[in-house]
């Protein structure tokens, strides 16, 4: 039952999450905004279309979107969503989780380089740089949680029990680091701007300019899934009552998910995008937070574990 619930959530909620982010942005801009399911309709439209391929591309270009989607699904299966246990769980699965992200990213970067476009090459170079900077952030954040809970898998890692100031410090630092990681991974403001039409400033969007039809749909589903996974991690990390009786954890998680989407949308509405050369500093701040979390676990350890 819970397996069906998890799979349904993974299938539908990513689009709803993007819809809520968009609606929040529209609200801040004083507009009505598109419907909550607009991104799902967009994907549906793309799936009905035919993909167009440039003559300079190789088969690599054709499989990349599907590798990206598969890798996002692979990570999603390990993530506890909506207060439900994940579909799959095994010791040290967060390594799989992170490198599935990495595999999808490499696929998109290679496909971008495959087109031979100077724009897409620049986008791939930026993606590669920022991703390599982001990797230690993920490990510091998960490492801190790992030390805090003595868990070995994402399912046990999250939620972290908040007992006392040291644990609260760890969770707060990790939550902030994860928020930045989600913004970078999902190409959101202030790191990237999913709404821009300016190729020279893009990171993620420019790499997928040449994809069309079902291929583009696969990338959009994968991107939505990545945002949803990230938001779900935050929700699971901060969930106040994961062990409560049946409908409550799910209801609380759903409410918190909406809260995360509104938070992301609000940040995007009130903050300008960073200069590109400032993005490494922004990721560096997240790394600092992750490290603070990691060090705070030692503080807790001293108190006797």
């Amino acid at each position: 039952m819970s397996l069906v619930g998890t799979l349904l959530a993974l299938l539908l909620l990513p689009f709803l999450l993007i819809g809520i982010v968009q609606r929040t942005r529209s609200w801040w801009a004083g507009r009505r905004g598109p419907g909550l399911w607009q991104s799902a309709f967009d994907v549906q439209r793309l799936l009905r279309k035919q993909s167009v391929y440039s003559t300079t591309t190789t088969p690599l270009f054709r499989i990349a979107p599907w590798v990206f989607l598969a890798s996002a699904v692979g990570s999603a299966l390990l993530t506890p969503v909506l207060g439900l246990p994940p579909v799959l769980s095994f010791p040290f699965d967060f390594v799989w989780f992170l490198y599935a992200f990495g595999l999808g990213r490499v696929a998109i970067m290679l496909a971008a380089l495959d087109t031979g476009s100077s724009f897409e090459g620049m986008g791939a170079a930026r993606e590669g740089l920022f991703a390599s900077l982001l990797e230690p952030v993920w490990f510091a954040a998960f490492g801190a949680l790992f030390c805090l809970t003595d868990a070995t898998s994402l399912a046990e890692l999250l939620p972290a029990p908040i007992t006392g100031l040291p644990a609260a410090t760890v969770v707060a630092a990790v939550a902030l680091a994860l928020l930045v990681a989600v913004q970078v991974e999902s190409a959101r403001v202030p790191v990237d701007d999913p709404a821009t039409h300016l190729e020279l400033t893009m990171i993620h969007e420019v790499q997928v300019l040449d994809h069309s039809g079902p291929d583009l749909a696969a990338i959009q589903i994968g991107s939505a899934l990545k945002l949803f996974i990230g938001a779900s991690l935050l929700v699971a990390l901060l969930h106040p009552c994961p062990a409560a009786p049946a409908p409550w954890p799910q209801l609380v998680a759903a409410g918190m998910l909406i809260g995360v989407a509104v938070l992301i949308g609000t940040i995007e509405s009130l903050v300008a995008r960073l200069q590109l050369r400032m993005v490494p500093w922004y990721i560096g701040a997240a790394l600092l937070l992750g490290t603070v979390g990691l060090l705070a676990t030692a503080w807790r350890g001293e108190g006797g574990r």
Partner: protein
Amino acid sequence: MTVVVRWPGSALPPATAESWRADVLARLRGGARLVTLFGRRLGDQVLLTAVLQHPDGALHVARALALADTGYRALTAEHAAAHCFERELVEQTGLPLTDHPWPKPLRYQDRDQAAMADHPFWQLQGKEVHEVAVGPIHAGVIEPGSFRFSCLGEQVHHLEIQLGYQHRGVEARLLAGDPRRHTPLVETIAGDTSVAHAWAFGAALEALADVAVPAAAVAARGVALELERIAMHLAGLSGLATDIAFLQGASSWGRLRTTAINTSMRLCGSRFGRGAVRPGGVRMALTAELRAEVAANLRLLQHDCAHVDDLFFGARSATHRLRGIGTLRPDVAAEIGVVGMAARASGLALDARTAAGGIWHEVPIASVVHADGDCLARARIRADEIRASLAWLSQVLERHPEWPAPPPPLPSLAPGQFVVAIVEGWRGEVVHCLETDERGRLTHAKVQDPSLRNWLGLAVAMRGNEISDFPICNKSFDLSYCGHDL
């Protein structure tokens, strides 16, 4: 400003190209500013014209006949601000100039358009350099133009901009038919600067026809011009906020632009100021009801702009994004002849309105100058100019509540005259030069949009910046493709 210089065109100038060149250079060294420079083919000779502005604001016209096969040594070699004029001169007259450091076609006018694909771009070579070609077709609904970035990684070493794709033969079209009926055509030279072009063209025709425009009509033209300035500045600020993904600024300024252009529509029937100015006067009626509506719109703009400006320039993330990006130093801006709001953002107090008579003398407008020359300064200039224009509009509407009826057709134009008219559009000075032959027909029409000179300012401002900063630099200059290409 509408400065009109008469020049007895029938008497051919006695000066030779060499003495003309020496005279122009001497004046430039003496602190004068080159306003425009162009030529017209007369058989095996080329009639050269240079318009200079002395530091006191007075205009000087220097003309000479050059032999079409000998030419002269390019002024650009010693005075970089002449670069675009002399490129155009070569392209339009075939006059051979020596020592021009950048002798490339300006807009490939009257030539095979296929040649544009082989434009000799400056090339950067080396192991770690790469070139990025953007355009001529761009994403989004904008005009065509080809940009070639020579980069070291993310850093732009040089940007070359090649234009001409929008060339429509405006100057030739102005000579065909009765020029007194050409204002609708002139309003489409650069659609976002309709009022300024129409006013400059109208002022030149009025000077040729020796017609005086009533003070109230000049005031009405000023109202249309400042409404155009406010609307375009709001559009530019909204675009700039969009490009830095600052949603609040983008939507708020975008909303206010609608109020500004709708005010223009109520006055002249067009949101872009078309039909407002006609030779001899204006075609706008100001009823009591309309006056109240305009005043209410101005109050709304004044109130909301102050609020939105404070929020935008108070947002650290927004100012940090723009500060120090695309800096054009004052000395460089002066050297390459940047004009208008871009020049004022780089510390140059260039504003044709301050030296002009008429309504600008009666109700002086506060001209804003910033020194930093970066994208933030160009954003601040626009916000400040909106406020100055709003304050000015309120005063003018109070002083001139009645506008005259549409003017009668102009009488015929005086023969053998040459006139220059300058109007400070929102982007900078719009210059129209008209010349009549011995029978009072137009023999030469020279149109100059500030974009012609400012495109190089954008290219120079990009040097050393990151390529990802190009869109905001571009938006901060906000230049016209069709105004350049004519």
